């Protein structure tokens, strides 16, 4: 279940990057399903897994509202497995 959640958020992130690359806004595009916030952990994982290149542009985060307690364990900010995919 946790892995599925991560895949969902990473997929959303990739979609947002593609939107941004096509001239669309990345504002609130890496959001969770239920609101306009962005799961911080998944966002970071997505950056590292999908944006690590010498030619990529940094992602503008000014219009993102990060949610630090969402993701695999909503309401819990102690998810020690949040970054296992990249460690």
């Amino acid at each position, binding site marked *: 279940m946790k892995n599925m959640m991560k895949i969902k958020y990473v997929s959303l992130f990739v979609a947002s990057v593609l939107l941004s690359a096509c001239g669309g806004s990345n504002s609130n595009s890496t959001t969770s399903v239920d609101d306009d916030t962005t799961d911080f952990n998944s966002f*970071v994982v997505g*950056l*590292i*897994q999908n*944006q*690590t*290149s*010498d*030619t*990529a*542009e*940094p*992602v503008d985060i000014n219009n993102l509202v990060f949610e630090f307690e969402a993701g695999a364990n909503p309401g819990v900010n102690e998810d*020690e497995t949040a*970054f296992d995919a*990249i*460690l």
Partner: protein
Amino acid sequence: MTIFHHKKNLIAATITTLALGGISTLVTTTALASSHREAPFITSMPKVDGSDFYMFRSYETDRENFITLVANYYPLQAAYGGPNYFDMETDALYQIHIDNNGDAVEDITYSFRFQDVVNDLQLNIGGEQVSVPLKNIGPIGPDTTDTDNVYVRQTYTLDQILGDRRTGGSTAVVNTASGSSTFRKPMDNIGNKSISNYSDYAKTHIYNMTVPGCATAGKVFVGQRDESFAVNLGEVFDLVNTNPLGPVDGESNVIAGTNVLSIALEVPITCLTQGSEDVIGAWTTASIRQASVINPFPDADNNKAASVKGGAWTQVSRLGMPLVNELVIGLKDKDSFNASEPMNDGQFATYVTNPTFPMLLEILFEGIAVAPNLYPRTDLVETFLTGLTGLNQPANVVGSEMLRLNTSIDAKPAASQNNLGALGADTSGFPNGRRPGDDVVDIVLRVAMGALIPDATIAPNRTAPLTDGTTLNATEFSNEFPYLRVPTAGSIN
């Protein structure tokens, strides 16, 4: 002690005649210290903190047709800082950008990446092979490859990128002698027992380099050097708690004896200029990956580092003209400036046209110091954003902050250089580029209060020979590439 306490002296003070040789527009800059820890965010990342940037016609014998570029990073190193000392950041991109047509966009970028080379030195302790805790367990040198006693050293690669820094065509610069695209960085100056003749050892790390598309070889060196800036730093930031009308060498250079890491290039002039335009602009940047995750369980045996970094390269340090982000840009915008590109410098224009620093001096020395009453400060605009008409302004300039050099002006040997640069009738120096011996602190102090504004009613303090009380000149530096001094040793024995 107060500034300007001898008002009569201030009014009567003479200043070296401004002889900017054909310059029709006057210039001034404002600031007091270079770019050491100048912005809030960069203080957390000293390895990528660009502190000084130099660009000048080489004045080494027989190298008059070359440009030397030096970018200093990782300032204020205490030489004894073992066992890890001061390696460059491996997860960073250090770059020097050249704009050779005045459009505020990089045309050539020299891009450096660093790598750790680990030799897991172990000793047999009671039958067990155990890794040692030190960076070296025996002498290093005298040759470049004499590193068998070293646990971890660094190499680097250098690419030349034509066009956009991210998407332009990138080609490796190679060692002319070996053809290798990997260069060695010398170990830091640990001390005489580890490296018996550091000067000679470091020189073995100066490489002739073959630059793509450039018929003549250049030079490259990256390594530790002695801090090349001089400033009475503590007093300056203590509300200018010094006498700026005192002797130019009357105070202590508090950063003397610290070290920096220098990235130095020497490139033929013809490989940097474009067409008939003699003026080039340059600046240095450092970028790190956008994301970083701390590993709670580092595991060297399984190649699990203390952190994982990824994402796009994201610029965190920018330096062209000295002192701009230090004392021109408002505190709230310093991080933004470090992340910015020259093409977007319009956002910072007010800091240049309406500078706060001269007024701060007026406030600090009420009734004595008087900020120039000239708004917008068109002199500052030329200095910071366009270059000076007739000296170092490109024909089709787009306003943007960078260090600009007219490459057609001959270099002067060290003994003939005036450390006040153009203020001292030496147009081969700052603000036409910047040489190690240019005393930019004294220069900018004087011009900040109007030294280059001809009308004394607008700039009453224009003739004040202001100084921070520390000085430097070209004879204190080497006459050979990379010019900056051998670093202070970590051990005094």
